[in-house]
């Protein structure tokens, strides 16, 4: 099992300057995530979920300690290597979708492949596959302003998944969605997790999301409070 570790976090501290002193958002976090996990950081607002996810996603650097993602020590990555890690191995899903408004659904999903310099024919196939996973092949020519919130988030999932990254980081992906849409996209992600073996790490306090997680990592005031494992059988309400 040793070589199937995808995220390894040791004594991770993240502090932000605040007034005269500093504010400690993450305090000595130790955590390991295995390949293929469907797990989530759970905790009240301000507990440090986004901060931790950003560090894992190499969007931010630790103050002390280390987070190793796919063998890469985040604190030692230069901007170039961090960009490369994101480009090749990471997918992001945000609460507010963050789609490019003037580009079509197809172009939004295609964008990560452009960064990877993938050939046009191959690109087309990959984009159409990704749109099929999320059930949006009929909307490839639409632009985000013409889509519902649920559809937008599905485009964002397709965009995160299109390059088949090893790890997808999803920060409150259901916060702007109603129950039906939330379940829909969660089921989609579970399916991708099972079929492609993609590792998912969520940050959430939404009960609907929590009910799908197989490992629940509770954060409180920048520390890990407890971790719950869920037996495979009694999880996914499908």
């Amino acid at each position: 099992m040793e070589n199937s570790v995808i995220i390894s976090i040791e004594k991770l501290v993240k502090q932000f300057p605040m007034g005269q002193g500093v504010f400690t958002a993450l305090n000595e976090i130790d955590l390991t995530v295995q390949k293929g996990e469907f797990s989530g950081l759970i905790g009240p607002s301000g507990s440090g979920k986004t901060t931790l996810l950003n560090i894992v996603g190499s969007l931010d650097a630790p103050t002390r300690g280390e987070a190793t993602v796919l063998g890469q020590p985040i604190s030692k990555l230069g901007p170039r290597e961090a960009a490369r890690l994101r480009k090749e191995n990471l997918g992001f899903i945000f609460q507010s979708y963050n789609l490019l408004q003037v580009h079509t659904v197809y172009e939004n999903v295609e964008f990560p492949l452009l960064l990877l310099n993938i050939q046009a024919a191959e690109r087309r196939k990959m984009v159409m596959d990704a749109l099929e996973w999320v059930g949006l092949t009929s909307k490839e020519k639409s632009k985000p302003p013409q889509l519902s919130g649920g559809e937008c988030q599905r485009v964002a999932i397709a965009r995160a998944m299109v390059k088949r990254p090893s790890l997808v980081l999803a920060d409150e992906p259901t916060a702007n969605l109603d129950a039906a849409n939330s379940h829909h996209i969660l089921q989609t992600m579970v399916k991708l997790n099972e079929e492609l073996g993609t590792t998912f790490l969520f940050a959430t306090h939404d009960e609907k999301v929590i009910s799908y997680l197989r490992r629940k990592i509770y954060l409180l005031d920048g520390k890990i409070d407890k971790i719950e494992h869920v037996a495979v059988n009694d999880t996914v309400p499908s």
Partner: protein
Amino acid sequence: MIRFLIKGLIRDKSRSALPIIVVAIGVMLTVFMHAYIAGIMGDTIEMNARFSEGHMKVTTRAYAAEIDQVPNDLAILEADGLVSKLENQFAGVSWASRIKFGGLIDAPDENGETKAQGPAMGIGIDLLSTESEEPARLNLTKSLVRGQMPRQSGEVLISDHFATKLGVNIGDPVTLIGSTMEGGMSMYNFTVAGTLSFGMEAMDRGTIIADLTDVGKALQMEGAAGEILGFLPDGFYDHEEAVKMAEAFNAGYSGDQDEYAPQMVALGQQEKMSFYVELSEVWLYYISLIFIIAMSLVLWNAGLLGGLRRYGEVGIRLAMGEEKRHVYVTMIWESVFIGLAGSVVGTGIGLFCAWLLQKYGLDISGMMEGSSVMMPSVIRARITPPDLWLGFFPGLLSTVIGTMLSGIGIFKRQTARLFKELEA
């Protein structure tokens, strides 16, 4: 990737059409203003050149020293000889002898008694020879109000206003009472062939235009010329060129102590005009500078705003794994295209507007009434080579620099912070 960026650029009007329009307007105004001012300044200079100063003026040294008094007793005696010499030395330049004179015009009644009198400013030019460029230079045919151009010696043109004041009609005799070269009094009879209106108060008050030969006879200075004016081949005053010619000419007389030796001055070297020539250069310089600065500020701001508006897009692209540097470089390339497009369009429209104003002019004679300054009554722009780059480069540079600065603002931020702002 490039196609992706171009699509974004074209579809997002606030990133393409809008800034291009802003750039184009700024560039257009700069180009147009420059041509407009060049036109007004240039026309004023040309008008003074044609009516009184020439691009270069040759007089005797003594005449030049008292030029304001029009000292015809110090005139150039063998004028034709000097003109041939000038024509040989300066190919392409057109030289014209003139005599300026002051005097009284006396209008007699049927009995030969004085009916009315008035002070006149006279110019003797080559009116009668067919190859003379002088009538065209002074725009005489177009300025004619009544009567016709003189056809034979003894005929004169006087300003219409002056004719009305004296009660003189076409074909009536008038007597010029002036002073001879030797200082004696002279009387000479002319016939009025036509009346003129120049649209310039300074000229319309009391001008009389006669043939040079007649004036020579009247003032007993036949063969002499008070002034020989030179006009550059392309019709526009070129200060450097004119000064160069003046220096070349004067060098030929540097060993000569004679105060009647000829000397040449360029228009811009004459006291009266030098201020104006300098002013026009300074003005052009400052107006252009002010416009360029104002435009740069506006465009810079537009670039900044454009950059700030794109926080979201930048954040997404960074999250997808695009390098900061690459995002920055693509944004700058975009601004280069925006700046180029806007500057080309703006320069084009600016030149077109300037060309319209150059070709058709804008008649402001109504506003010029009562003015004693010799100013053109029709405003014309004049397109000069700087118009090609004067708006173009500031338009391009300020767009690109604006984007660069706004980009630095974005990229100094932590990537994670960009996302905080994105989520907000």
